[in-house]
């Protein structure tokens, strides 16, 4: 290799593919046997799966009802609202990519690729929709460029995301009395859109409530503490389905006549409270892991109780429980399917509705449910990937 390697220690030879194979797959005779067995096994499994996916399966229900899977029965003439929300998200991803970089970059790029593929799908598609899909990657790059301007500050980007959340809800539901933004009954919301909304509202709202419950449970005020303990223990002692039933059927019975709370909202409240109770317990675990010395030091330098909590204890406690919290978010995302039981047409329920919409599709369960499973898997994997990267970035478990 090197010609003048008199005193220099020879570096290990570069890990070529053959070397790698030999080291990892064929280093001993039983390794070799195992490798060959695994290859044979994988060959048959993959062959079976692929031939089913590509030749046997009938993807008609999925290919013919993309709109239903995406947004349910949301009025077609109002779909520009969903498009606007996607534009907003694409732009914000671009902006966050510039400002935060790292993992956000991966997600922004994944989004760009996903939208580009959708825009170029070789199926019959409204030209307007195609252009709409194509606009998303462009907006991401515009957002990325906008990151150079004064709005490219961490603070503004965070505010932007928060604002986009509020705007999303407003846009989707519409506002009474505004002609160009009429109300859209939540009964018409459905599909992936509804699944996302349920999960997002659950995640965004249950987090602060969970923090407050966890702090309340540690409080020295007996009434506050008692309330928090009671709430947490009751909710944790009951299945989510029960809570959803309570929220959708029993709650209206207690409300005075004339007051009706929206069905979707009721499900959201139920899921949020359910998630908050579990969140509280997870966060409490983190709070208990913080040494007393931290609180003493915070008080000794003159911080009051709120500052000591908010600046010293909570940031450290939350960092410790990120993996648990993300695990809970993933569970919550999948629990949204339970909303089908109280009559909401989220992704899973839409799948069933699609199957029943056409006599010829009746037996195509496999195709439809596999499709739904893949969608769930993609987003869950994204969440757990983000969590792992966040842990690395924050140095969890180093210390």
């Amino acid at each position, binding site marked *: 290799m090197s010609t003048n390697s008199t005193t220099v220690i020879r570096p290990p030879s570069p890990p070529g593919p053959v070397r790698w194979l030999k080291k990892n797959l064929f280093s001993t005779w039983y390794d070799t046997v195992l490798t060959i067995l695994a290859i044979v096994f994988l060959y048959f499994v993959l062959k079976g799966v692929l031939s089913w996916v590509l030749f046997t399966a009938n993807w008609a229900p999925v290919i013919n009802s993309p709109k239903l899977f995406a947004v349910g029965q949301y009025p077609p003439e109002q779909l520009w609202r969903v498009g606007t929300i996607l534009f907003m998200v694409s732009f914000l991803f671009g902006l966050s990519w510039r400002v935060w970089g790292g993992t956000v970059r991966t997600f922004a790029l994944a989004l760009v690729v996903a939208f580009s593929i959708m825009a170029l799908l070789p199926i019959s598609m409204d030209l307007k929709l195609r252009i709409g899909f194509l606009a998303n990657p462009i907006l991401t790059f515009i957002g990325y460029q906008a990151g150079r301007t004064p709005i490219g500050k961490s603070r503004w980007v965070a505010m932007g995301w928060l604002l986009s959340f509020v705007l999303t809800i407003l846009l989707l539901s519409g506002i009474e009395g505004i002609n160009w933004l009429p109300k859209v009954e939540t009964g018409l919301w459905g599909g992936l859109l509804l699944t996302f909304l349920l999960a997002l509202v659950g995640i965004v709202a249950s987090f602060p409530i969970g923090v407050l419950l966890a702090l309340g449970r540690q409080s020295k005020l007996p009434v506050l503490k008692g309330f928090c303990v009671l709430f947490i223990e009751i909710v944790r002692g009951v299945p989510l389905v029960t809570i959803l039933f309570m929220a959708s059927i029993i709650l209206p019975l207690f409300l005075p006549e004339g007051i009706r709370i929206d069905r979707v909202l009721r499900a959201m409240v139920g899921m949020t409270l359910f998630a908050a109770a579990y969140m509280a317990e997870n966060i409490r675990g983190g709070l208990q892991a913080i040494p007393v010395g931290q609180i*003493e030091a915070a008080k*000794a*330098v*003159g911080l*009051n109780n709120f500052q000591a909590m908010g*600046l010293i204890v909570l940031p450290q406690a939350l960092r410790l429980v990120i993996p648990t919290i993300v695990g809970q978010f993933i569970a919550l995302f999948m629990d949204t399917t339970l909303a089908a039981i109280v009559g909401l047409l989220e992704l899973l329920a839409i799948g069933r509705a699609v199957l029943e919409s056409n006599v010829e599709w009746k037996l195509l369960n496999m195709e439809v449910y596999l499709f739904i499973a893949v969608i769930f898997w993609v987003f869950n994997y994204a969440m757990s990937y983000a969590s792992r990267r966040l842990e690395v970035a924050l140095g969890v478990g180093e210390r």
Partner: protein
Amino acid sequence: MAEANTTHSPNDDIIICRDVHKWFDDFHVLQGVSLTIKRQEVVVICGPSGSGKSTFIRTINRLEEHQRGDIIVDGIELSHDIRNIEAVRREVGMVFQQFNLFPHLTVLQNVTLAPIWARKWPNEKAEETAMQLLERVGIPEQAHKYPGQLSGGQQQRVAIARALAMQPKIMLFDEPTSALDPEMIKEVLDVMRELAYSGMTMIVVTHEMGFAKEAANRIVFFDEGNIVEQNTPTEFFANPEEERTKLFLSQILTH
């Protein structure tokens, strides 16, 4: 409040403790401690472990609550009134045995946090002061590292800078060198000695008798929850009056 106090003569009593009692359940930790400390005085508290010396200095900034007696710090009486407690804590800095730095903040943020939040200083002013303090304790180049990246001695010096950042009138040290490796003790004691000579009022719980001899105005010997004997360092080491003091001194000075 700060201006009102500067009109006092420098020899005023800044800490007055009268008949302070404290119990941990049935255990009577402090059994009527009375101690008065003057401005700019440096007092070293020593005594066997379990004698209540740490508990005592922790009552001065109310990390421990006393159950009987009075503690008056810089004219403010410590009671259940949280405003009084917070006012006292702003005037009293504390350094802990285990440093207790905030591991999720950089060294600079550790030092600027309290001035920004409790004194409402603008960031620039807090950072400028913090850098001066880090200079003073000899580690300005570590400002942007995290506490976990520093040695024990460096961490303890950051802790001293953090306490000084609030511009306290009194500094409490709770066994500041006990958790340090021997070679790092000196760097911390040097900073403390410099602080003592600069006129800071200090109460130091420590076993470092060399520091006591050099820097203290008075040594207070604790045993079984009360003060057994107190004197100037020279007298204390040369002519201890009580048997318990003699025994303690013979134990710590022979090795």
